[in-house]
């Protein structure tokens, strides 16, 4: 932590006394990995963000920008953390042209508030990310966390049209625009996606919006082996049906998911009863499209010799969709000791899945596996114990998974782990060959290295 004389009063001169908090309780509220900042600031405007960052750059104070703080654990804990920038008062919908399906919105607006405004015009933003009840728009983009609608709508890089942000010199910058097709200038806003606040403080985002579908339904099929489930999963992808989500998970994941669904008001699909691998497919469109896709799914699951096959009605589809969207959140809370890895492999065959699961089977740990849309897998290692043998097993398991994934030319990221584990191993895995280029990008955006230093890939 840097030491700056009279810091709170100097900050108050910038944003006013009602916008600076420095009490112990307030600072603890914004602590990351046990480290609290020296002050929490709540700017009212992008101009104020610029002034704060200019001050921070001059004083070399480390700044962490945040919204609802639901995903601050992503990446590594920052090596320095002096100022927390609470952006939740930047919450205006600055521009919304439903006729053009374009939107410009302040970073601190909660996603669910935005969803309401868009739904009034029968539109939505396909950012189905975990912690949806509290997440801000800016946090969803900066975290880069997977949306469960990715299969159909792509990642934010496919519908983020532009951004306004404050760079590491305190200047307000922008990139892109507000129109759906635009190649004017460098696409700097794409770099902000998933940058975990290490390049700039996002203050405003421009999106393309989408019409709400008439109907959203889903289908669940169960298979006795991972091979059968993967074959079915692959056949659906190959067939070219427009799925909004397609996920495959093991019985341990099903059991945890059932636990989440069993909360009051929830219900567990019949297919969850018993062992096996599940394939969840959701789809949207008009009534004819629903009927057609359901028919195809019934036929194909029969051909694939599914043990069970079930079409879910709209309500149960929605419940399961929401539960899968929130998987990151409930998986990380599923047991006292949890390590959650996001894994991308060039190809996923049944042997690969078995090999990865075998790691936990060799150790006194449980596991849960889900293959999400677009080939992204999440493998969770968990244990109810927190003793030394458990810690040793968890560390060995994660380390073994990193090396197996790297041997398959894939990539793994530790998206949740106990603090002691992050102290011992890097959440990002080995550096890639393009790492020096990323350092150049960081240096250009943030020459003083004040934005969440150390949080990102390779210690950026």
């Amino acid at each position, binding site marked *: 932590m840097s030491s700056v004389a009279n810091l709170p009063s100097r900050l108050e001169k910038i944003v006013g006394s009602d916008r600076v908090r420095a009490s112990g309780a307030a600072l603890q509220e914004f602590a990351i990995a046990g480290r609290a900042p020296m002050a929490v600031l709540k700017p009212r405007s992008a101009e104020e963000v610029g002034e704060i960052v200019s001050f921070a750059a001059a004083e070399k104070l480390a700044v962490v920008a945040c919204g609802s703080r639901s995903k601050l654990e992503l990446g590594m804990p920052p090596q320095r953390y002096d100022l927390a920038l609470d952006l939740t008062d930047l919450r205006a919908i600055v521009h919304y042209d439903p*006729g053009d399906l374009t939107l410009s919105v302040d970073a601190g607006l909660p996603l669910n508030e935005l969803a309401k405004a868009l739904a009034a015009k029968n539109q939505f933003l396909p950012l189905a990310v975990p912690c949806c009840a509290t997440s801000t728009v800016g946090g969803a983009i900066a975290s880069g966390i997977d949306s469960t609608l990715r299969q159909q709508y792509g990642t934010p890089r496919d519908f983020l049209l532009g951004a306004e942000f404050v760079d590491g010199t305190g200047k307000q910058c*922008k990139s892109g625009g507000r129109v759906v*097709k635009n190649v004017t200038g*460098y696409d700097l806003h794409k*770099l902000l996606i998933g940058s975990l606040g290490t390049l700039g403080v996002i203050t405003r985002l421009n999106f393309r919006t989408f019409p709400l579908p008439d109907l959203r339904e889903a289908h669940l099929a169960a298979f006795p082996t991972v091979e059968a489930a993967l074959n079915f999963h692959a056949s659906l992808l190959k067939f*070219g049906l427009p799925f909004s989500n397609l996920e495959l998970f093991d019985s341990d994941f099903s059991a945890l998911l059932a636990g989440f669904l069993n909360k009051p008001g929830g219900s567990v699909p019949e297919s969850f009863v018993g062992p096996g691998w599940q394939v969840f497919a959701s789809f949207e469109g008009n009534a004819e499209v629903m009927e057609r896709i359901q028919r195809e799914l019934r036929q194909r699951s029969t051909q694939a010799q599914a043990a069970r096959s079930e079409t879910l009605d709209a309500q149960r589809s929605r419940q399961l969709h929401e539960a899968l969207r929130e998987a990151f959140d409930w998986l990380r809370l599923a047991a006292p000791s949890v390590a959650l890895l996001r894994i991308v492999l*060039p190809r996923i065959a049944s042997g690969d899945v078995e090999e990865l699961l075998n790691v936990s089977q060799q150790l006194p740990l449980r596991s849960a596996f889900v293959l999400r849309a677009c080939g992204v897998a999440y493998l969770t290692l968990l244990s109810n114990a927190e003793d030394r043998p458990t810690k040793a097993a968890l560390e060995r398991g994660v380390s073994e998974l990193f090396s197996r994934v790297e041997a398959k030319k894939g990539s793994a990221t530790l998206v949740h782990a106990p603090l002691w584990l992050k102290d011992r191993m890097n959440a990002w895995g080995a550096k890639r060959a393009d790492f020096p280029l*990323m350092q150049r990008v960081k240096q250009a955006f943030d020459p003083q290295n004040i934005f969440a230093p150390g949080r990102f890939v390779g210690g950026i």
Partner: protein
Amino acid sequence: MPARGVNYYSGNAAPDSRWPLMDPALIRELKSLLGPANVLSQKEDLLLYEFDGSVEKARPEVVVFPHTTEDVSRIVKLAAKYQVPVVGRGAGTGLSGGALARGGGVMIVFARMNRILELDVENRRAVVQPGVVNLDITRAVEHAGLYFAPDPSSQKSCTIGGNVAENSGGPHTLAYGLTTNHVAALELVLPDGEIVCVGSRHGDAPGYDLCGLFVGSEGTLALVTEITVKLSRKAEAVKTLLAIFDAVGDASRTVVEMTARGITPAACEMLDGWTLRAVEDYIHAGFPRDSAAVLLIEVEGLREAAESQTAAIADICNTNHAREVRTARDERERDLLWKGRRNAFGALGRLAPSNYVLDGVIPRSKLPEALEQIHATGEKYGFQIGNIFHAGDGNLHPIVLYDPRDAEQFSRAIAAAEEIIRMCVSLGGALTGEHGVGMEKNELMTLLFSDADFDLMRRIHDAFNPDSSLNPGKIFPLSKGCGEIRVRNSRRATGVQS
């Protein structure tokens, strides 16, 4: 050795007596590296490379044809040794002067790096060299029901390397996005000759989206030597509609209403009456000569979805007073309609010695207003300005026909173009939807970007291309540029051959 940035501009104004400006030792070294057959340095050979599809002009001092990534790396290192700039070029079909040697120097033409290195049908990926022609990717995979989605009108000749540099679009961008949405990974050569890969063939690798930065950077950050593209699956059903209107306003209001109702066809193209008559005389695509505008609309997807969308679109067209809505009955009729659209610029070439195809973007809700203003600009400057464009995503392509031998007419065409682009920006739009900034619009960038924006873009530029040795004089206004480039003659003076 000449100091860099002093005398490498080699447009018309370079006196022949001083030709070549470049150190002959560099040309000798290039010939020894690549073989004489892969190096052009005679002035008459270079003439071909001083043009692209734009109205700009600038001549390189030597043109080289690498065959491998290592060749490119060695060329770049040699150029660095002699401190001369380097510009990459594909087929030279670009419309913003992106592939012109504004700073003279070495032009790397990727025409001979044109191999498809790998096709992975199962995972829908292809690894290609930059000189592969856009349409050849689709031809190589269509047997498997796949295709490469970005489809610029020049797709029979433009190269994927150029598409990546400019982040090219096309009619089907409306539903499927620009080139950037279809590129998974890149191999790059940096200005110091280093070879590096960014992106990830499958899924997304941890870290910043460098691929997203390099695609569309117009050759100002690195040279792209290998591209991993994503392949798309052909839709089960395709329906192509031709909606015929007696008033341009009705056609544009149809587009506005379609967008507002959330109907996104795969493509939605507009041709105004003047343009479609020129096209019809040349192509005989079946566009009615007496109409004021047509919309060429394509719908793709599941049979059930395509049918209901087609019905909804026809309904909107009729509500907006379409004279007739035709549906292509078979593949032949569909091809004919698209042939009319894709060859429209060629058809207009019959009407005047040259044409200037503009590229601006507006919010779709502003389409009727924008078309009226374009018409007014045409009247003000004394041009008949045609419109043939991607209406569905608000990407305008007004076409100004002019005679480049008439300097006064040329400067009037430039002034009309600038007024139209300014109008796009004032309606909340952008300078370019798919052609790039290049040296066509770099001076207009100040309409959209502030000094702070330029500062950051310049820092990004300098992080990769610190000496401005790659494609100097592009994207940035010369007053806010990167490094030094001395352009002795502005485009207004040299863009026209006298």
